[in-house]
């Protein structure tokens, strides 16, 4: 199905698509994040048990959900890249990984800050927290493997294998709270039932989740576009692009 597409045009089209989508994702992320955060921090009611400390949920839950969502998308890209040998999918693995790693880190840190006053501990070796920590190591492993080889192609393949194998961890994180006696409570919204959160608290949460999703999409576009031109560095279209972009940069500098 892809064969008829000219291999050079494919990368160029993907590159242009990235920059076409970027402004939409950027604006949507700014709007949803701003409205969701202000709503969650100032206008949503406090929780009956946790008071205002519960407002950390508006950052903890989105980063946690999307750390897993980003990993799943990364693994799907890796699978497509491995099986169908689609170069852009392989490049997307490396585009998503750093953003996913930052989200995982944020989920862990905000969780610790929330856990200290409520549970009474920054960290417990409970199944949910431990499996999320493993997710961070998986992301770092993917990034490290990608850069570990002289030949970029080999690195991408090694990183893809780790990304695919590591996807086992995602359902473990999700079901950890049901399979083990964890200190972490069960799922509030990611379940096949009515969310266990009152509606006026839920809306800002959905907004910040959307916000972090758009940030992930926008950053993936940006980073993927770079991976594409780096990968195609010797092709004429990239040469033309580099000339064009660098000369416009120097011209705008000169005009100042």
């Amino acid at each position: 199905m892809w064969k008829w597409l000219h291999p050079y045009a494919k990368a160029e089209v993907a590159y242009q698509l990235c920059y076409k989508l970027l402004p939409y994702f950027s604006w949507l992320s700014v709007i949803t994040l701003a409205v969701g955060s202000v709503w969650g921090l100032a206008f949503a009611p406090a929780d009956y048990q946790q008071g205002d400390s519960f407002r950390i949920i508006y950052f903890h839950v989105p980063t946690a959900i999307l750390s897993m969502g980003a990993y799943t998308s990364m693994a799907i890209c890796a699978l497509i890249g491995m099986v169908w040998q689609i170069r852009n999918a392989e490049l997307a693995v490396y585009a998503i990984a750093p953003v996913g790693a930052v989200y995982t880190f944020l989920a862990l840190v905000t969780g610790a800050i929330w856990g200290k006053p409520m549970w009474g501990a920054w960290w417990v070796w409970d199944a949910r927290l431990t499996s999320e920590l493993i997710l961070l190591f998986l992301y770092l492993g993917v990034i490290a493997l990608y850069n570990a080889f002289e030949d970029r192609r080999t690195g991408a393949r090694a990183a893809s294998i780790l990304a695919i194998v590591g996807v086992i961890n995602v359902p473990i994180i999700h079901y950890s709270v049901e399979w083990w006696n964890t200190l972490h409570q069960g799922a509030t919204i990611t379940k096949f039932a009515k969310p266990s959160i009152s509606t006026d608290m839920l809306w800002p949460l959905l907004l910040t989740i959307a916000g972090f999703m758009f940030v992930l999409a926008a950053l993936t576009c940006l980073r993927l576009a770079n991976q594409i031109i780096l990968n195609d560095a010797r092709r004429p279209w990239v040469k033309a692009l580099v000339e064009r972009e660098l000369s416009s940069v120097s011209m705008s500098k000169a005009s100042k």
Partner: protein
Amino acid sequence: MQFNSLSDFIAMGDYGAYVWSSVAIVFGALAWIVVDSVMLKSKTLKAIKQEQERAEKIRQAKQQNSV
């Protein structure tokens, strides 16, 4: 608005330190990864340009040697 005054809002019912530090860390990290992703483009372009110039020099040197 759930808070009566700005100082109430900042205090966050005595959880201010926890709530605001997580807000700061989240937006700090987001800003860092956004800036890194944006800066990546000019870095990549320059790297490609350098690589191209190097390849050109090697090609020219080879040509001269062969002559």
